[in-house]
């Protein structure tokens, strides 16, 4: 019979004498949780039901929420009153002071409050210390070595861990954790996530936060109606709500996450418009040095004249084809294979994929057939005209163009344009110029905002 009491004592003694240290423990736990996350991602991929994982996540959140609610209801009335009291009056100092530069006295007080009998005060002191950034890590370590209070030690360890492992960057007063950055890697395998990719994703998140913070400062808000409208347009561009939902599922994204992304996108767009508009109405106040010039008609005309090929008539078919050359009696067998590839294409859509499926790896080409231009080999003039006149977008056919080669041809892109005079082309040319200018302005605005923001780590955008 096992002496279980002995086991409990053994564990405690192991922890007291044989523990590898708190940092190592925290790293071990983080590694373990990461493995769980990876395994779940693999399972989700294996099941190919991304929607289920979303539902599961929601179910977990719901069960945690139900637990939280239950805890609230089982708290005695007096406890609830006490919590309510402390959250409304009295010990609010840490939360209030979190927004201003802390003095040494503030920090000392918050550290003392980590052992306060009231958990609410302890939580707020932790939060206030957390907001103060990596500069205090040294101080946390010092306090950790001095304190024997388990609660204080555990909170200090959490703070040290947070600033040494969990935080990816800080934008002004906002903290960005690696978890936020990693959310963008949902559809990547962990082995594909390189350091460069991590840094790239971090820069994208930081950049967006800089824009959003400026929008917030200026009071820019996207209304629910605007958001609904944008989401509807987005769904329409996918060919309807159902198709949009499938596309999201394929990417492992929830409609809620998509909605929030649209909201952020609209906010940033509105910020850019506002800054541009303000700079345009008051030339003296153009802090981001935006290009506010108007493109003259003459300039557009010069560009039109310099690029005549862009406005000439075009009738072009971009095609992909596979050649089956044959000698004598091989003809029928080659034709059967060619027809089988066309049948395969009904499910595969792409000629390349269909060929791969049928074991054909050679003589696959791509090229363009243009009316009025020389035809590429091995197409005859007749076949070229057949493709330009009769083929539909995406269509594939077997073409017997000569006595010693059978072709399977797929039309994958079609360009038809009539020639345009300057007057006809002017709106499109102007739009192109405006787009270029918008891009330049967006870049200047980005640089300006990044320069003004306080970003840690400091070298994140260096040389970019």
């Amino acid at each position, binding site marked *: *019979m*096992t002496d*279980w*009491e*002995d*086991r*409990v*004592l*053994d*564990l*405690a*003694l*192991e*922890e*007291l*004498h*044989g523990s590898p240290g708190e940092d190592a*423990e925290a790293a*071990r*736990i*983080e590694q*373990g*949780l990461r*493995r*769980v996350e990876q*395994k*779940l991602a693999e*399972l989700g991929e294996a099941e190919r039901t991304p929607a289920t994982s979303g539902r*599961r996540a929601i*179910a*977990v959140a*719901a*069960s*945690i929420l*139900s*637990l939280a609610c*239950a*805890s609230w209801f*089982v708290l005695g009335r007096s406890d609830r009153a006490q919590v309510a009291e402390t959250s409304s009056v009295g010990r609010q100092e840490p939360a209030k002071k979190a927004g201003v530069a802390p003095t040494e006295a503030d920090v000392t007080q918050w550290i003392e409050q980590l052992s306060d009998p009231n958990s609410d005060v302890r939580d707020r002191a932790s939060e206030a210390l957390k907001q103060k950034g990596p500069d205090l890590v040294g101080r946390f370590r010092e306090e950790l070595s001095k304190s024997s209070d*388990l609660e204080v030690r555990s909170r200090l360890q959490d703070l040290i861990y947070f600033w040494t492992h969990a935080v990816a960057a800080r934008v002004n007063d906002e903290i960005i954790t690696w978890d936020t950055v990693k959310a963008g890697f949902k559809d990547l395998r962990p082995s594909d996530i390189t350091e460069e990719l991590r840094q790239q994703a971090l820069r994208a998140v930081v950049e967006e936060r800089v824009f959003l913070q400026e929008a917030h400062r200026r009071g820019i808000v996207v209304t629910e109606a605007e958001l609904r409208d944008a989401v509807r347009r987005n769904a329409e561009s996918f060919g309807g709500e159902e198709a949009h939902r499938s596309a999201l599922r394929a990417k492992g994204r929830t409609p809620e996450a998509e909605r929030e992304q649209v909201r952020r996108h609209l906010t940033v767009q509105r910020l850019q418009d506002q800054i541009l508009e303000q700079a345009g109405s008051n030339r003296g106040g153009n802090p981001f040095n935006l290009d506010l010039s108007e493109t003259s008609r003459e300039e557009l005309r010069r560009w039109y004249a310099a690029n005549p090929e862009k406005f000439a008539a075009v009738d072009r078919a971009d095609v992909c084809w596979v050649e089956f050359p044959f000698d004598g009696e091989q003809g029928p067998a080659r034709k059967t294979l060619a027809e089988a590839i066309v049948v395969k294409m009904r499910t595969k859509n792409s000629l390349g994929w269909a060929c791969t499926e049928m074991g054909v790896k050679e003589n696959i080409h791509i090229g363009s057939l243009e009316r009025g231009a020389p035809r590429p080999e091995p197409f005859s003039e007749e076949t070229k005209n057949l493709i330009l006149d009769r083929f539909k977008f995406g269509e594939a056919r077997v073409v017997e163009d000569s006595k010693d080669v059978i072709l399977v041809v797929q039309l994958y892109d079609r360009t038809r344009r009539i020639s345009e005079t300057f007057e006809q082309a002017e709106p499109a040319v102007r739009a192109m110029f405006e787009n270029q200018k918008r891009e330049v302005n967006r870049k200047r605005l980005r640089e300006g905002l990044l320069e003004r923001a306080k970003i840690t780590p400091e070298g994140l955008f260096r040389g970019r």
Partner: protein
Amino acid sequence: LEEHYRPLWRYLRFLGCSDTLAEDLVQETFIAVLARPPVLHEPGAFAAYLRSVARNKYLKARQKAKSEPAWEDLGAADAIWEPVADREDWDRYREAVKGCVDSLDDRDRVLLETYYSRKGRRKESAATSGLSEEGMKTLLRRIKTRLKSCVKGKLSHD
């Protein structure tokens, strides 16, 4: 989950898992629970639920290794574990153990440190302490008996 990681690992170690098996089983438990999240309405039920899943995982692992423990034995284990299962209770218990270890005389304290910092490798610890393996075993048993009664006293006093 982070909050439950260590207590669950400790529980599995308590049941008799090695460090690495406990680590694996904690991860398997989390995966199983996240794959089918329970709907619980009692505060504290989540930790107990995790323990029951982990215990089943442990039993399966033992079945595979053909060394299945007795159910009655595990029932007794849970009864002993329950008072120290929560993080705060465990910290209180460990603090009491620490207090009792501090009150031991120097020789016994050094012996404990030597033994537990070597992950219970008795032979090696005995050699370091200049004792025979059997002598080390007997001494440890005595020290632990003293510790257990000291811890009980401390906790009941608190």
